[in-house]
Structures are given as C-alpha cells and as structure tokens.
C-alpha cells in the first residue's frame, strides 16, 4: 500500500477487519493511492516524526489528514493526538477520530485536546463506506492546508 509519493492520508487502525473494510471503502472512493497505515500509536508517531523506520522522511512532508482510532495498543489514540497537537511541526495536521466509542467523555477529551473531527464508526457497512468516502473527499480534496516547506 505504501507508494513512492508522499502519503496524503495516515490511517491508524489496529483491528484487521476494520482496517480491511476501511481500505475497501477508501478504494471504492478512489482515494486509496496515497495511504500510509500504522497499526498502533508507536508506528503512527514514528511515521509522523520521521523516527525509526521512517527516519529518511521529512517531517514537512506531512499527510493531509490523519484518521485515528482511539483504542490502540502500546500508545493509544489520545496520547498520539496529544503528541501531534503539542508539536508545532505537526499541530496543523487535521486529525479525525474514527472510533467505535460514543462516550461523551471521549468526545469531550478529544476535542479539548484539539481533534478536528470525531466520527463514530457505523455498524452498517454502507453507512460506513459513505462516511469514509465523505471524509476522504473532504479532507483530501476540499480542505485547504497551509503550505509546507
């Protein structure tokens, strides 16, 4: 899935099934070309801050949007979010929580930490794929980002 061009979308998801369905939905929406997948919070941070296996990257080549799940092993979504929003090099990257949790507590904390959107994953696949497509279209195509470099 990793292409040679800089990924435009970072998808952080630990669940295999959810991952497959999300990628399927993105593919159907013709947005699958520039996706970077991270399986947990550590991978996500390594990618964003160009550490570890991604040491060769430039931080400035940030993705256009990050789709972040809350429940992640090792470092969880909220922690990742904090780190992203705390660092000025990454704080302008839009982060969309894409999670099963409907808990008000989670929503509130996420927003307080600076999340840009919070989507609850619908059970129905049709609704799910519509949501993903709309998300993708919006953040990748419609939304303006500050210029990099």
């Amino acid at each position, binding site marked *: 899935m990793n292409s040679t061009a800089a990924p435009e979308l970072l998808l952080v998801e630990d669940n295999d099934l959810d991952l497959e369905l999300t990628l399927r939905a993105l593919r159907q929406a013709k947005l699958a070309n520039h996706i970077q997948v991270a399986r947990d919070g550590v991978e996500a941070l390594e990618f964003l801050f160009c550490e570890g296996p991604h040491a060769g990257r430039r931080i400035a080549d940030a993705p256009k949007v990050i789709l972040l799940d809350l429940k992640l092993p090792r470092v969880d979504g909220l922690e990742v979010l904090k780190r992203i929003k705390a660092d000025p090099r990454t704080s302008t990257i839009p982060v969309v929580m894409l999670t099963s949790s409907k808990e008000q507590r989670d929503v509130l904390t996420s927003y307080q930490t600076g999340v840009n959107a919070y989507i609850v994953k619908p*059970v129905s*696949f049709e609704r*799910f794929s519509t949501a993903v497509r709309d998300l993708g279209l919006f953040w990748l195509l419609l939304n303006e980002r500050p210029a990099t470099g």
Partner: protein
Amino acid sequence: MKTAHKVSVLIASAALLLALGVAVTFWAFIRIERAAAAREEVFGILNRADDLLSALKDAETGQRGFLLTGDEAFLEPYLSVRDNVTGHLRELRQLTRIEAAQNHLATVAPLIDAKLVELAGLVALRRQNDLAAVTARVGGGEGKRLMDAIRAEMKAFTQIEGAALAEREAQFQSDLSRLFVVIVVASVVAVLFALGFAYSVQREMQRRLGEVVHRETERLLGLQQESNRLLGEANARLQERERALTTSLKENGDLKTALDEHAIVAITDAKGRITSVNDKFCAISQYTRAELLGQDHRLINSGHHAKEFFAGLWSTITAGRVWHGEIKNRAKDGSFYWVDTTLVPFLGADGQPAQYVAIRADITARKNHEAAAARLAAIVTSSDDAIIGKTLQGVVTSWNPGAEKTFGYLAREMEGQSITRLIPPDRQAEETDILDRIGRGESVRHFDTVRLHQDGHAIDVSVTVSPIRDAAGRVMGASKVVRDISERIRAEAAVREGEERFQNMANSMSQLAWIARADGFIFWYNRRWYEYTGKTPAEMEGWGWQSVQDPRILPEVMVKWPAAIAAGTRFEMEFPLRGADGSFRMFLTRGEPLKDSTGRVVQWFGTNTDVTALKQAEADVRLLNAELEQRVAERTAELLAANKELESFSYTVSHDLRGPVRAIDGFSHAAMEDFGTLLPDEGRRYLRIIRESALRMGALIDDLLAFAQLGRQDLTKQAIDTADLVRTVLEELGSPWTEREVAVRVDALPVSFGDPALVKQVWINLLSNALKYTGKRARAEIEIGSTRRGGVDTFFVRDNGSGFDLRYAGKLFGVFQRLHRDQDFEGTGVGLAIVHRIVLRHGGRVWADAAVDRGATFFFTLEKDTQP
C-alpha cells in the same frame, strides 16, 4: 252752609269741563278717521288708473314682440289685458265720485276698445304671416295715435283726482289746528278751577282748628284751681298725724330695749336692707354694727337653704304675713349657727310692708344634736343586717328595714312583740341565756344559730347582741345584729364538696400526685403515691419524698425544684423514684404553680408520670434507627458499586460488540459486491439475511447502550419551548417518510420543564413510533397536543395507526418487549422503555390508550400530579 254749596258747584263745573274735553277729542278722532279713509280711496283710484295704463302698454309691447318674432309667448300680456280691461274700467267708474273725472273715463272707454281692436287686427295679420301688411299698418301710426289719446285722458283723470285729494288734505289740516286751540283753552280753564277749589278748602280748615284750641285752654285753667284747694286741706291733716306719730315712737323705743335684752333682733327696710341690729346680732354673727348696716341678709347666707326657701319667706312677709322658721346662717369667721326666726312685717300707711323686724333665738346646739341623731338613725335604717332593739324581757322596741328583709316581718308587726317568735322551738333556751348575759352587761359575739322567717323556713344566721345602757350606765335593753349567713354556709358546703371530688379524682388517676404549699412543703399525696412507694404519710410529708429519690440524681433535683419554687415557674424534670419493691422506675415530674390574682404563688400542684416504658421504647427506636441507617448506608454503597459495574459492563459490551458486528456486515456486503454474481439466488439471500441480522444487532446494541446511559446521566432541568422542540423533531424525522401522505397536526403546546436532550429523546421516540405504526395507512393522521389534567400539563401523541391490544399494555414499557411482530413493524422494543425511564426520572408518568387497528394515544407528564 256756604262752603258745602261752593264745593259742590266747583265739583260740578270740573266734571262738566271734563265731559266737554272728552266730547271734543272724540269728534276730532272721527274727523281724522274720515280724512284718512278718503285719502286711501283716492290713492286706490290713482293706483288702479296707473295699473290700467301699464297693462295697456304691456299689451302693446307684447304685441310688438309677437309682430317682430311671431312667437306666441309675447302675446301673454296682450291676452290678459284684452280679457280684463273692461272689468278694470268698470271698477274705476264705480270708485270715482268726481263728475269731471267720470267724464274722462267715459271718453277713454271707446278709445281703449279701438286700441284693442287695432292690436287684434295686427295680431291676426301677423298670424297669417302677412308681414308687409303688418309693417304697413304699424307705419300708418293708428296704434300710436290711439295710445297717445288714451294716455292724455288718463292723465287728465289722474290730475282731477289728485286735485280733489289735495283740497281735502287742506281742509283736514285746518280742522286739526282748530281742535288744538280748543284743547289748550279747555286745559287752562280746568287748572284754574282746581287751584281755586284747593284754596277755599284750606281756609276752612284753619278756622276750625282755632276754635278747638281756645276751648281746651279754658278747661285746664279750671282744673288747676281745684287741685290747689285740695293740697291745702291735705297739709293740715298731715301736721296732725305727725304729732300722733311722735308719741307712739317713744312707746316703741321702750319695747324695743326690752326685746333687745332677750333676743337677736334686726330691722330691715322694705327691700331687706338692714337698718338696725341689736348687740346680740353682732355677737352671734361676729360682724360689727357698721359692717351690717346697709347690707341685706345675703351677708350671712350659709348656702344651706334652697332658693325656694327664701322665695317662700319673702312672698310671705311681702304679703304682710308673719313668717316662722329655722334658718342656718354663716358667721364672719365661716362657722355656722342655727336660729329659730320670726319675721314680722310692719305695714306702712298704705297697708304695704314698710319694715321687717326679725326676732331670732340661737338653736345651734339643738340642731347639732338632731343631726347626729339622724345620722345614727340612717346607719341603722340603711344597714343590710337586721338591727333589732329589745328590752331585757325580750320585747322588740325597734325593727330596722334590714330586719324586715331578713325575717319577713314588718316593723309594725314586730314592735312591741316578743322576740321569741323568731326562735325555733328547739332553740328557745338560747334566748334566755342571751338575755341573762346581757343583763349582766356582757356582749354575745358572732353566735351562729338558726332563726325562723315569717313564712316558716329556717335561716342560718350569725347573731351579735350588745347591752344598751342609759345615761346612768344601767343596762336598759339589748341591741341585736343578725346577719343572714345562708350564703356562707352554702359556699362552705360547696367547698367541702369540691374538695371531696378532687380527692376522689386525684386518688383514682393512674399518676402519682401531690400538693405543696407555696414554700414547697408537700402536705398531701394521692393514694397512688403511697401505693407505689409503700411509705406512710408521716414519712412523706413536707420534704420526706427525698428518701425515695435516687441518691445520684437527688442533688440535681434539689437544685431545680427550689429554683422553681423561688421563681414561681413551672417545674419539669425526669428522675427515677424507688418503688415499694426497691426497684427504680423513671418518672416525668411536673409541678404547676397556682397563683392568686396578684400573681403570688399560693400552692403547687404536681404529678409524677411513669415513663419507664416510654423511655425504653425511645431507646429501642433510636437503636433501630441507627441500625437502619447503617444498613441503608451499606446497601447504598452496594448499589452504587453494582451500578458502576453495570455501567462499565454495558459500555464495554456495546462498544466491543460493535466491532465484530461491523465486520459481519462489512464482509457480507463485500462478498455480495465482489462475488454476488457467482452465487445462486439462495446464496445471495443468505448473505442478505446475515447483513440484516447484523444491522439489527447493531440497533439493539445502540438502544441498549442508550438505555443504560440514561440511568447515569444528570438531569438538568430547564424551561423548554415544547412547540419548537416538536417542530424540530418532526423536521428531523420527516425525511424518510416522504412517500406517504402524513398529516401532522400540532396543537398549542405549553412550555414544559425538563432536561432538553432527554425530553427531545422522548418526543423522537414517540413521534417515530407514531410514524412507524401508521405505516400501513394510506393517510397517516398524527395529532400532537396537551391538556391540563390533575393540575399538570399532559402531552399526548395520537395516531390512527394499527394500535395495540390494551390487554398487553403492561408490557408496553418493558425493555425489549414488543407487542407486534418484527415482520409487521421493525423495532428493538427499547424505544418506549427509554421514554418510560426518562419520564420517570423527571417525576412524571407515561401511559397509553389504544384499540387494535384503531390507533393509539400516548400520554406523558414531566412533573408530579399535584391533585389526585
């Protein structure tokens, strides 16, 4: 006489003149009238003549107009003249009197006729439109000539009439001036007559007056002479009288001196002013002779006697009669004295009193005695008690009104009778005993006994008998004072009765009771006290109760009880008392002070109530309460813990369950998309079923989660614009059902009070239900409104859907309970449970009314009913 004759002549002449004047005036009036009438006539004639001429001219002009234009309208004046001219002429002839004028009229008549003919001829020619002939005729000048002739005759006529009028006018004027002269002359003559008449009358009056004065003067002279003569005679008589007077005066002087030695004497003049007083008068009144002379008796007025008294005195002596009486006077130093007075009027020559002589004797001492005696008598008479005077033999000598009232006998019935009449037969010995004691000079004091009333009934009495002594000190009788004491006896009996009743009551009540003196010394205990303590009165009396107190508590009691006694305030305290068996029981002791009208404590009344059982019960209750509270606290803690577990459980369950369910749906969908074509229909059907089941599971999980969350959420109540909320919900729900005809009616909705998010959920659930269950109707009718029931707003949602069987209404609000099959209407069965829970948390109620296939109405309130 001449004068009368003259007067009548004058009057007659005056009357005659007056009549003459009236006649002349009358004649003048008639003349004037006639002249005026004549004038009118002539003017009438002249006018008529004028009119006639004018009419003719108008006719001519009219005719000329017609000749020129041919318009018939112009002929109107001509036509009227033609018809009327003869009449006018006749009239004139009748009116005219002057012959010359008449002649002219005779001349003018044929002229007028000719003129008319001429006019008519021309009119006829014109009517034939023979204009040449007309012009020729007019040019001929015949018409004009005729007209001129007529005008000349009329003018002559007018002149004659006018002249005649002028002549008459002149005549009239001369008549008037003549009349004026006559009137003036007559007036002058009348005035002269009147003056002459007045003058002669006045002359006559003066003459008569002179005669009368002369006569009167003569008469007066005569009278004067007569009175002179009488005076001389009177003078002589007077001198004689004087001589006699001197003699008698001397006699009087001697008598007077004698009198002065014995009595108080004063002489006043007719007006009551003192002219002479003797030395005794000065002595008793303490005024000097100089101070008294010239004064009247007001100087010594004591103010004791009423005005009427002196009025009566004066009327007697001024009438010339002698007056006797007793008078109280005031001396110079203000002290009073009584005098027995005789007033003798000395009549003057005319029979009227000229002087009053007062001869008085000093009776002051006697009067004082009398007053004292009267006072004493009054005391006896007014006393309520019977005061009886009797001899040593028991015979009644005096009987006061009090005795009459007490015994019923009148004074005259008892005086002179024996007193034994009043004594009941069994007490006769008492009287003998009393009389003996009296005889010895002893008194009998407040001796209670019984006596008899006149009507025979017995009276309880208290008797006091004292001896009466004469001037020498010998006992000559007894004075008895008898007081009716029936009232007192009755009162004493009542008190005794009261006491007995009290004692009975106090002894029979279950509490211990006692009475203490004001100083706290208990002098009475009720029976219970002795029963309980097993002690004797002697042991308990006064402060003996201390022996049954708990020694540990006693010090406190001995502080509080004396304090209450000192302050006079109610005493209340709980302390144990030892019973006869030696064990202590707890008593609530109360002492009430009984105060008199001044607020001073007279007695203490106290009770001791056994509260042992009560105290025990109290202690038990307290213990129980403490235990309960503990249990409640424990339970609450348990519940909270359970709740918490439940929360995290339901959260975890719903959250974690979602993932797999999403996978089921997602991959079934992917399978359908990617490989659907490879599958037979049945395979595709299975996949579809899998998907639908997954979605249903997701819905159930969501609802379950929502339901669980409800218990935890805080309720923040605020005012909600219900109408607005409902509208919003309908909008949000509206879209999926645009294929059906849905008629929603929203009535006026009052403001409700609750948690906006939760209340919105209620509306969402109820309204989506309504929409859902009317799905099978071609036209869904939903009504949303509110009523006021039981003091609270009740909202309702009514639909005309499939309704439900009321028999199963109990299941309506249960979780996952459904009254319909999934095939008919999809749903999780949690919606109404959520509604129920939310409404309950607000303190309200939710219920429903429905019939199968006839729709349903769901009612809910958000607050407690205030009225049943």
